[in-house]
């Protein structure tokens, strides 16, 4: 029996976060209700600490540890840093909303930290078991966060739906993983790729498992036809939790898709590309068309998420074209860039809803945004930037995100797909620009002054300006994405 001590250094950030979560759990026992800010503060300190550790431990090498279950590469480091930032921004935006609804319990911050840990585990997973456990860790925390407002029947219903459908999706994923294990004889992602490459994998079983894996992933990403939970959960959950679900987990879901499909099954890329292509077209169509009919902003953004994930897929399905693999780096960087851009825009948009909400009032209807320009020209402009960016109007980050995935599609000569994507983007522009019209050309129905803490105002302004500025200099983020992927593939 020989036991080699695993190398803990690459997982230092995860270990630090878990330790801090346990410390906060204990501190919550002794601090009273009046010192809740301490918990929020400690959570932010934890995230900053994690970021410092991740930067410190990043060396650009692909390091495997824990018996090849954990991988630390530049892709993981980059995505983890983005997760910290988006969780930190989420918590800053949420604070006022939570305090006004007496939801600012330590449990919220703890569950957010545990969900972050789950995302980090998923991002760094090199083994099916770790992917699954990270996913469950994240999902379980999210289910509980949705249900945290127990007096709201809608939130409870949303949590129940999310839980039941999420459990089913996990089942799909596990079933697919067990099939892949049967086909290749290993649970390690690298081993699976090796087995497929060497041709020792049983191809029929492999494709059978692949179908289940893709279904499970599609549920987590919220792609048509596995999108049913998204509108109900987005609308039903407290807006702070919707913001949380709509931002950082998208990065983790992207990482999971990359690890499973690209790292594990790149050799059969043309098989899963076809499945994802159907879902991408359906998501772009249904997401954009259904969003037009919504009067609830949260529900509208939920459908917009579905369509955005469809656009993100355009990058993922353009990696390999008729056996030619040299598009891969470009296409996957485009998909990653799209995810990052979407998370930034999503943070800002839900942040604006939180900004306008106050005790007993949720600014979740489109009518609540009427005449925002008269109430606060600055935040109307920020929201305007975000909406233009979401619609893909030139010179905002959303435009370059759409542009790069479309370019990836055109590279593979899939012209009809590019035309379809542009067509649905034009339809989608309608409902984003409608929000702008309401803000600038309608009289306000709600005249209460906007009250928000200084840190939230500053953060939201920074968020909106980042969306605008990174659109003018798109090469910065794009370069980081392709560099991270280049060093990790």
């Amino acid at each position: 029996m020989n036991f080699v001590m695993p190398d803990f250094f690459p997982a230092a950030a995860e270990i630090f976060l878990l330790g801090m979560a346990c410390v906060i759990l204990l501190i919550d026992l002794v601090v009273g209700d009046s010192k809740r800010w301490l918990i929020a503060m400690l959570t932010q300190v934890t995230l900053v600490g994690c970021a410092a550790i991740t930067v410190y431990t990043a060396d650009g090498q692909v390091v495997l540890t824990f018996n090849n279950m954990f991988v630390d590469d530049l892709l993981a480091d980059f995505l983890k840093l983005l997760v910290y930032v988006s969780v930190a921004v989420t918590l800053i935006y949420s604070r006022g909303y939570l305090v006004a609804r007496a939801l600012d319990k330590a449990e919220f911050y703890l569950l957010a930290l545990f969900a972050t840990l789950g995302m980090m585990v998923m991002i760094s997973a090199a083994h099916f078991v770790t992917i699954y456990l990270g996913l469950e860790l994240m999902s379980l925390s999210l289910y509980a966060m949705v249900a945290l407002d127990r007096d709201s029947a809608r939130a409870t219903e949303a949590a129940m739906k999310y839980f039941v459908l999420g459990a089913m999706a996990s089942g799909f994923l596990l079933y697919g993983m067990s099939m892949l294990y049967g086909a290749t004889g290993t649970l390690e992602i690298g081993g699976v790729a090796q087995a497929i490459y060497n041709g020792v994998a049983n191809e029929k079983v492999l494709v059978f498992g692949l179908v289940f894996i893709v279904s499970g992933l599609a549920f987590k990403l919220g792609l048509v036809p596995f999108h049913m939970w998204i509108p109900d959960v987005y609308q039903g959950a407290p807006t702070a939790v919707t913001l949380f679900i709509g931002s950082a987990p998208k990065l983790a879901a992207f990482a999971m898709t990359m690890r499973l499909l690209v790292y594990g099954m790149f050799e059969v890329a043309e098989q899963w590309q076809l499945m994802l292509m159907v879902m991408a077209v359906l998501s772009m169509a249904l997401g954009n068309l259904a969003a037009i009919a919504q009067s609830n902003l949260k529900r509208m953004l939920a459908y917009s998420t579905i369509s955005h994930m469809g656009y993100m897929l355009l990058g993922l399905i353009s990696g390999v074209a008729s056996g030619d693999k040299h598009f891969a780096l470009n296409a996957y960087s485009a998909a990653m860039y799209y995810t990052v851009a979407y998370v930034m825009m999503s943070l800002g948009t839900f942040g604006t809803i939180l900004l306008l909400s106050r005790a007993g009032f949720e600014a979740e209807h489109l009518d609540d945004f009427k005449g925002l320009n008269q109430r606060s020209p600055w935040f109307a402009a920020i929201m305007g930037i975000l909406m233009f960016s979401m619609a893909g109007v030139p010179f905002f980050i959303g435009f370059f995100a759409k542009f790069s995935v479309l370019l990836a599609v055109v590279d593979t000569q899939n012209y009809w797909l590019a035309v379809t994507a542009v067509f649905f983007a034009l339809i989608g522009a309608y409902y984003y620009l409608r929000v702008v019209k309401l803000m600038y050309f309608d009289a306000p129905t709600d005249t209460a002054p906007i009250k928000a803490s200084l840190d939230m105002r500053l953060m939201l302004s920074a968020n909106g300006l980042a969306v605008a500025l990174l659109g003018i200099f798109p090469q910065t983020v794009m370069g980081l994405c392709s560099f991270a992927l280049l060093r990790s593939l």
Partner: protein
Amino acid sequence: MEPKTAIFYVLSAILVAASLRVITAKNPVHAVLFLVLGFFSAGGLWLTLQAEFLAIVLVVVYVGAVMVLFLFVVMMLHIDVERLREGFWSNLPVAIGVGLLMVFEMALVLTGRYFGADALPEPAAAAAGYSNTKEIGRVLFSDYVYPFELASVVLLVAIVAAVALTKRPGKDKKEQNVRKQTAVRSDERLRIVAMPSEKE
């Protein structure tokens, strides 16, 4: 027929029959008991595959702990069986149709040499003195220590979530305030009210 094959068929038949009864039993308590029977038979199947530790764990954990707890919950909750079974018979033909179609489709894909019994050879017999338990323990705490720790974090999240969702702060929380109790004065404990005596 070898005795081992006979045992396999007997246990499988009991398992299938018990699973069917789980979903058709009228009384939820019976359904739970049939599930216990199902787990027990599955444990027996594992024993024939030389996975004695897993078989025992299945019986001890699922039958002994989880299902008994489940039985308590089922007995304590008032389950309106009639409402649950509403539409069972009217939906049954459709359900059977869909189910059979799925079985047929899966049979088309799965039969043949890839998923047949030939593709999955019987595991080699273990050497004498080989301990299943020891081997599981070894891989669990060495090769799989990372997922093992993660599983413990998942359980911690479950505890935090359960507390967050069920602890009711505020008005309907009844708890003692020890400081107030010890600082109480005698005149606060008992109040003598002067009342005129009533006459019969």
